[in-house]
């Protein structure tokens, strides 16, 4: 990230605004439009459409970095020691990358059985 952190600051705001729209659609659909929406058959029907796959991947790519970059900001607020900060940065980056990979594989490699 750049020296003053303004890139990350901007990213937090831009991704937040994007997530706001995506999470509204996602939450309404998955939690209120009927219990079958979260069952395998409905997931398979949505994932047959590449637009829904794109929706989920964009959501994932916005929310995971937003959340973990936020955690890094919190660490910077409370952790003074340079060594601990470095360790936290490594752990945060690793967690975000692992979750991005798992999520991406789930969506991209999905084929209905």
């Amino acid at each position, binding site marked *: 990230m750049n020296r003053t952190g303004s890139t990350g600051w901007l990213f937090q705001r831009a991704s937040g605004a994007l997530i706001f729209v995506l999470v509204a659609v996602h939450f309404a659909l998955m939690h209120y439009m009927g219990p079958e929406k979260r069952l395998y058959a409905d997931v398979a029907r949505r994932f047959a459409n590449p637009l829904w796959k794109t929706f989920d991947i964009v959501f994932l790519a916005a929310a995971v970095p937003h959340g973990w970059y936020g955690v890094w900001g919190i660490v910077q607020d409370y952790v003074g020691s*340079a060594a601990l900060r470095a360790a936290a940065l490594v752990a945060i980056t690793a967690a975000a990358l692992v979750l991005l990979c798992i999520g991406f594989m789930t969506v991209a490699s999905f084929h209905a059985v």
Partner: protein
Amino acid sequence: MPSDPPGWRLRRPRPFEAMRRYHYRWGEGLWSHLFHRVSGIALVVYLSMHIWVVHNLQKGREAYDALMKTLSTPIFRVGEAFLLAAVLYHGLNGIRLVAMDCGLGMRAHRATYWIVFGVCAALGIAGGVILVFCLA
């Protein structure tokens, strides 16, 4: 003080020193920030579990549907209501923060905080009641 890490000019502040030294004001600004932080952490924890759960799609139809049925039982619906509250507060307050960063509503920051809080409470309670009593 032993050698300070680079970046700390004078010495490293002790934990929470700023709060005590500068008489941090316990007003709307502090609460809005604290709730934003707590809800953000809760959402990171939830999102991580969520990505792991959905990854079970790979195990096929029966296993996935059995898991989803468990996750639709009343106790998990109560959890969903808390998830709704966290995402409502964090999202609405996040939009409020972005608006203020754009210079919008700076003078009204107290009023907009209470608006966010009110909308969040109203939608959270209504949505939570539907989740727990109508869908569970």
